[in-house]
């Protein structure tokens, strides 16, 4: 039987189809858009005879809206832990920076969740923060990391609060600071915040960096400068939640 893992996040929705017998899987990704249910409907078409496990922000909504699927829900914490453990069995910590949330998960030796931390409702240090800052510097989000890596001078942004950080960025701009340098300072603020969270969870190494923000080369560079060899950037950082959900479905 095939098992479908669906990760309904704030920016994108990922679907993994896992063949239970062979363990082979394929995946697809779609933007969340303003009509996530329509996207889900598309991704869930022709799934008769499958079992479905949904994770992510929209997990409950999907489970409720598609009652005929009898979908099971799991939190992103479980899903990421499971996905990372499957792909990187040696991993002891998961860092997942997504669109809305940052999560740090400490894994036990057999891959179960030993402890986790999540940011509170404010967006500091999440993908949302970077998205907001990229648009205020008028750089496409996808290019924001590269843009920041062109910095040639260290300037500081101290606030982690989205609103205050923006006004700091604006006043740096008014002083004629190069936007690349400002972008770098904003990335450093995100990483500072992340490191503080990692310290709280006391994450052992190796650490696997997953979630959408792991595509950002500047965040990756800054994190690996601090964490060194012990950090692995997941190869497909945004598929892990959906894969984890499917694997949880497979193990019943």
């Amino acid at each position, binding site marked *: 039987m095939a098992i479908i893992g669906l990760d309904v996040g704030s920016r994108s929705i990922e679907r993994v189809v896992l063949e239970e017998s062979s363990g082979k899987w394929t995946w697809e990704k779609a933007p969340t858009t303003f009509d996530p249910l329509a996207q889900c409907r598309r991704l869930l078409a022709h799934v008769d005879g499958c079992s479905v496990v949904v994770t992510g922000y929209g997990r409950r909504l999907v489970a409720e809206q598609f009652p005929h699927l009898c979908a099971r829900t799991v939190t992103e*914490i479980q899903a990421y832990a499971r996905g990372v453990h499957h792909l990187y069995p040696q991993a002891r910590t998961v860092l997942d920076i997504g669109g809305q*949330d940052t999560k740090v998960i400490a894994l036990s030796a057999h891959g179960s*969740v*030993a402890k*986790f931390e*999540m940011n*509170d409702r404010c967006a500091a240090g999440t993908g949302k923060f970077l998205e907001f800052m990229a648009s205020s510097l008028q750089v496409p989000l996808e290019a924001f990391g590269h843009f920041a890596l062109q910095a040639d001078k260290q300037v500081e942004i101290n606030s982690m609060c989205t609103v205050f950080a923006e006004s700091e960025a604006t006043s740096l701009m008014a002083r004629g600071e190069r936007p690349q340098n400002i972008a770098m300072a904003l990335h450093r603020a995100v990483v500072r915040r992340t490191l503080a969270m990692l310290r709280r969870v006391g994450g052992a190494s190796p650490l696997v960096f997953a979630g959408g923000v792991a595509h950002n080369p500047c965040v990756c560079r800054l994190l690996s400068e601090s964490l060194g060899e012990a950090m692995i950037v997941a190869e497909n950082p945004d598929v892990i939640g959906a894969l984890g959900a499917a694997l949880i479905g497979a193990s019943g």
Partner: protein
Amino acid sequence: MTGRYEAMWERLNLDLDAHASLLEVLGKFYGDIYMSQQGRLRGMEYLDFVLSEIHGLRIQELQEARANGRKVIGTFCVFVPEEIVWAADAIQVGLCAGAEAGTEAAEKILPRNTCALIKSFVGFKLARLCPFIESCDMVVGETTCDGKKKAYEIFSDYAPVYVMEIPQMKCAADRALWKAEVLRFKQAVEDLTGRSITAERLREAVVLINQRRRALQRLNRLRAAHPVPISGRDVLLINQVSFYDDPKRFTQKIEELCDELEDKVRRGEGVADGAVRLMLSGCPMAIPNWKLPYIIESSGAVVVGEESCIGSRNTRDLVDESASNLDELLDAIVDRYMKIDCACFTPNAERLEHIVDMARELNVKGVIHYGLSFCQPYAMESFKVEKALQEAGFPMVAIETDYSMEDVEQLKTRVEAFVEMVR
């Protein structure tokens, strides 16, 4: 209830429109969170009734008592020695401060980064929403945290505030300070009521309040059974109602409910099959602050104990009834209240011990530490609590939130993930 009590509310100078919408929200909230539960105890009907009449019948009773010359004293903290109030034939009500209504009004005179509890009691007064506050002849504040301490200064422009100084350590000098404060309070209550507190009356009051604590202790023992016979929400509600219903009636009703519960336990009937047993610990949860318990109990868990002022911190210790004269009774009261392990004390090792003991006795899978945003004492202690629990083998998650509904989805994710983790 609107029609029947409108004139009374008007006399109490409530903002009738705002009050009507508050009741509407409260009613809906109550319906969703409480009435939707399956297989509740018959005894909960009493609580449903009390709650449906929260601003009606009980307020009417208070008004009638006042018309007969009795005084009503409102409190915000379990430190205020109730026995003294009842001994002077006054009535004590715990003022709730568990809703967001009135926050905007409160923010006009308080900094934004103040805990929701403080904003709520000030807001209820400023927005003229709470018939309890309006029925008080005296409101007793206390110096438990800096936020409250300073808020009472501002609040005293709007209400008849009396402030008790609570010591912050537990040495001999602190006990002496507390004794002096209890005596000063006794005097203030006697002045307000025009009645002097005799040994006999004080002993009666001690017994009265002890009985209520015993009933709640019994409830806490019964609820801890396997399978869990009553939801944590229902027990929280009982604890909340204990603060403002008449103590004699309340005790009797809760004993009846406990009889029913006892049968249920004997028959091995549970309310939450397969749910994970969790314990809540931390800041007080005043009516109608049911957000977190509701989230927990809709995430595959059941709350089997509250280490909180609206919970075990308020019921664990009794006043020694064996004292023979007024001074000894007062000493017994002083000693009982000095055992309260609020986070405002330093050091506060007892609280850690109590939490670990409770977690063991209740046989929980984990603990959720609840803190109100901007509450420093409990936020600071949560680190120590986590460490103590960890050493004892209990996982803990710290949740910080307020009375708003904005973060419900995030809280659900955290609570669900915690339940998955400890299951």
